[in-house]
């Protein structure tokens, strides 16, 4: 549901400024939202470098945006208090990119009923529809799952819904604030003519016989087979979990038929990285020996190295038997490469082998930790539904634990706890500016269609509790005694999170629960660098921001104020030094009818001079033409006069003869 008019479009890479007023957590979440745009669309974001139009994200009152590119230079987008949720930010940026709300489409009455007497008085205008002259649905059907759709409770004056979907099943779907829906992406990619995304590389669920262009290696003992079930397990693939007869394929290495140490190698097609860092995500099933192993290599091709260089990235050992397991592998490749999966038969009995399914590769950061929760369904709404994760360490060394509360009748809550850990004596306390991102994974086989539910919190070292302690001080000082399942005691700090992480309704939707397993992905990163002001822009060379100096005013010799090519480059007559293509050059001042020119603005020009030059050159040309004309007339006349006299002479001779 987009605004009509090319003038409302942004360039594919949108300049932005994260203003100082933003909360730290909001800054981190905004950058995470940008990563979702880079993965699923062709929209990218870059720090403002002086372009004419840019989006200024600041902490205003509430969460709001304009619709489309206003071409007004600085365009504000407010991420105020409580707006620091990733889908809220995606929603506001979709407005900025030119999208209205879904239920204001011209055809919405075919799909929802608006219950007007349940709307707060004076708010009815928020439910207007707009004809297809004002907005364009881009030939995409009405989307109940859009992140731009009101929820059923929008602007209600009581407890009854203001929006009733004509298909009842969507009543608790409208108003989702998890991620882009498929149709959101279809519309955005249509509106901006997207042909590729920045960070998506490949996704494979092995449903097609071409197995995504993967190739078997010749230097191994066995091949991987594309099958839909294996007697020793798995009974079905991970993509469809046996729900679809005739489909549901995966790749299997039958280790029961080879010797210990035998290998089966499967290589991806050649891939071309852009960002230099990648995350590989896949599911692995072991129905063979518990000593079976999967090695992940990179075959990197550089100039003059046709066969590529094989580099071992990860050895996956101790693969649990009898269930699909999710794995992440971090990579750092800058040249053309293949991902190589090498199954190795381990010692011990082996009736089945190794199976792989639902591979996704993207140039994104992998989560730091995975918390797998088995037999999940029975925990929802149950008194037993209060779970603590195993302990994890952040990259900086902080120990933490996640608390998931499913016992509430409607909502699931999630909280982040610092706990006592081995590094505490070496760490800074209170814990400063560590952003914890907790993601409930939507296990859709294709990463581009995953609508994972994510919340982030950030440790504010200045936050205090009512008893005067620092909230994020070391757990051994402010925490409570707790015990791990094995009886080991430790200290747990207070939890920090939300009781409204996701509704149980939505939790049962999509692929959050698959094979009765749920995955919570965890990342804890240091965002203290976001505490500083975003670097000031240097005017971009292709930009039309002139620095017209008023004569007599002090003008910096370099607009960027940064030492560089302009440092020793002097411009005369108040010219301003600017850097274009790494070289210094002068931007000369100009006025109504005068200007300076020349490499250092050493020459002066004016309209009067130009006119004089033009007139005099015209006069000169005219005079020249006149002279040429006169001369040619004279010569012509002279020539004919000569001819005439010579003819008379000839005639007289003839007469004489005659």
């Amino acid at each position, binding site marked *: 549901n987009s*605004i009509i008019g090319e003038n409302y479009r942004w360039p594919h890479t949108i300049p932005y400024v994260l203003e100082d007023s933003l909360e730290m957590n909001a800054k981190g979440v905004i950058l995470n939202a940008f990563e979702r745009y880079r993965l699923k669309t062709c929209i990218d974001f870059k720090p403002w470098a002086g372009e004419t139009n840019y989006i200024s994200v600041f902490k205003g*009152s*509430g*969460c*709001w*945006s*304009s*619709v*489309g590119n*206003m071409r*007004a230079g600085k365009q*504000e987008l407010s991420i*105020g*208090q*409580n*707006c620091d949720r990733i889908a*809220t930010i995606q*929603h*506001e940026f979709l*407005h900025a990119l030119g999208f*209205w*709300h879904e239920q*204001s489409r011209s055809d919405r009455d075919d799909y929802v009923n608006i219950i007007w007497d349940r709307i707060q008085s004076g708010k009815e205008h*928020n439910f*207007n529809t*707009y004809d297809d002259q*004002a907005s364009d649905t881009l030939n995409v059907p009405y989307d109940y799952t859009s992140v731009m759709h*009101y*929820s059923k*409770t*929008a*602007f209600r004056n009581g407890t009854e819904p203001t929006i009733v979907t004509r298909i009842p099943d969507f009543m608790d779907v409208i*108003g989702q*604030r998890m991620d882009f829906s498929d149709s959101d992406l279809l519309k955005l990619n249509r509106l901006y003519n997207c042909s590729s995304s920045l960070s998506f590389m490949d996704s494979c669920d092995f449903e097609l016989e071409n197995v995504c262009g993967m190739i078997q290696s010749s230097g191994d003992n066995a091949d991987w087979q594309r099958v839909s079930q294996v007697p020793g397990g798995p009974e079905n693939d991970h993509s469809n979990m046996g729900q679809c007869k005739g489909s549901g394929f995966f790749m299997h290495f039958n280790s029961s038929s080879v010797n210990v140490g035998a290998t089966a190698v499967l290589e991806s097609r050649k891939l071309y990285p852009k960002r230099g860092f990648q995350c590989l995500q896949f599911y692995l099933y072991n129905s063979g020996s518990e000593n079976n192993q999967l090695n992940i290599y990179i075959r990197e091709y550089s100039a003059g190295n046709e066969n590529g260089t094989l580099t071992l990235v990860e050895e996956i050992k101790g693969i649990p038997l009898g269930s699909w397991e999710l794995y992440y592998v971090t990579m750092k490749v800058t040249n053309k490469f293949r991902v190589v999966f090498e199954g190795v038969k381990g010692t011990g009995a082996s009736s089945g082998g190794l199976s792989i399914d639902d591979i996704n590769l993207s140039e994104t950061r992998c989560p730091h930790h995975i918390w797998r929760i088995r037999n999940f369904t029975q925990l929802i709404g149950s008194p037993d539904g209060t779970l603590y994760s195993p302990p994890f360490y952040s990259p900086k060394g902080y120990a933490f634990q996640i*608390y998931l509360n499913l016992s509430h009748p409607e*909502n699931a*809550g999630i*909280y982040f706890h610092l706990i006592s850990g081995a590094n505490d004596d070496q760490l800074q306390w209170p814990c400063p500016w560590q952003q914890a991102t907790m993601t409930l994974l939507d296990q859709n086989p294709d990463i581009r269609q995953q609508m994972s539910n994510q919340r982030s*919190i950030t440790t504010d070292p200045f936050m205090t*509790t*009512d*008893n005067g302690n620092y*909230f994020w001080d070391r757990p051994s000082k402010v925490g409570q005694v707790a015990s791990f399942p094995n009886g080991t005691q430790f200290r747990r700090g*207070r*939890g*920090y*999170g*939300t*009781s*409204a992480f996701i*509704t149980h309704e939505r939790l049962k939707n999509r692929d959050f629960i698959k094979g009765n397993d749920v995955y919570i992905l965890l990342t804890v990163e240091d965002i203290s660098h976001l505490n500083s002001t975003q670097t000031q822009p240097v005017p971009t060379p292709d930009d039309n921001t002139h620095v017209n100096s008023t004569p007599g005013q002090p003008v910096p010799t370099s607009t960027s104020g940064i030492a560089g090519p302009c440092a020793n480059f002097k411009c005369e007559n108040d010219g301003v030094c600017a850097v274009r293509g790494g070289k210094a050059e002068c931007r000369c001042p100009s006025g109504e009818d005068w200007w300076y020119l020349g490499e250092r603005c050493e020459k002066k020009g004016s309209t009067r001079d130009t006119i004089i030059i033009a007139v005099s050159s015209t006069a000169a040309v005219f005079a020249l033409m006149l002279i040429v004309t006169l001369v040619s007339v004279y010569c012509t006349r002279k020539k004919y006069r000569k001819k005439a006299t010579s003819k008379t002479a000839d005639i007289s001779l003839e007469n004489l003869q005659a």
Partner: protein
Amino acid sequence: TPENFDVDGGIDQDIFDINEDLGLDLFEGDIKLNGVQGR
């Protein structure tokens, strides 16, 4: 003091609820219109 600190204060607020509670009267709850766009 409660075991856990709830950043949402125990309620699940949508964008429009947050803006309404702040007394904002934006177009369709979260849109800042410019003069031209008057839908």
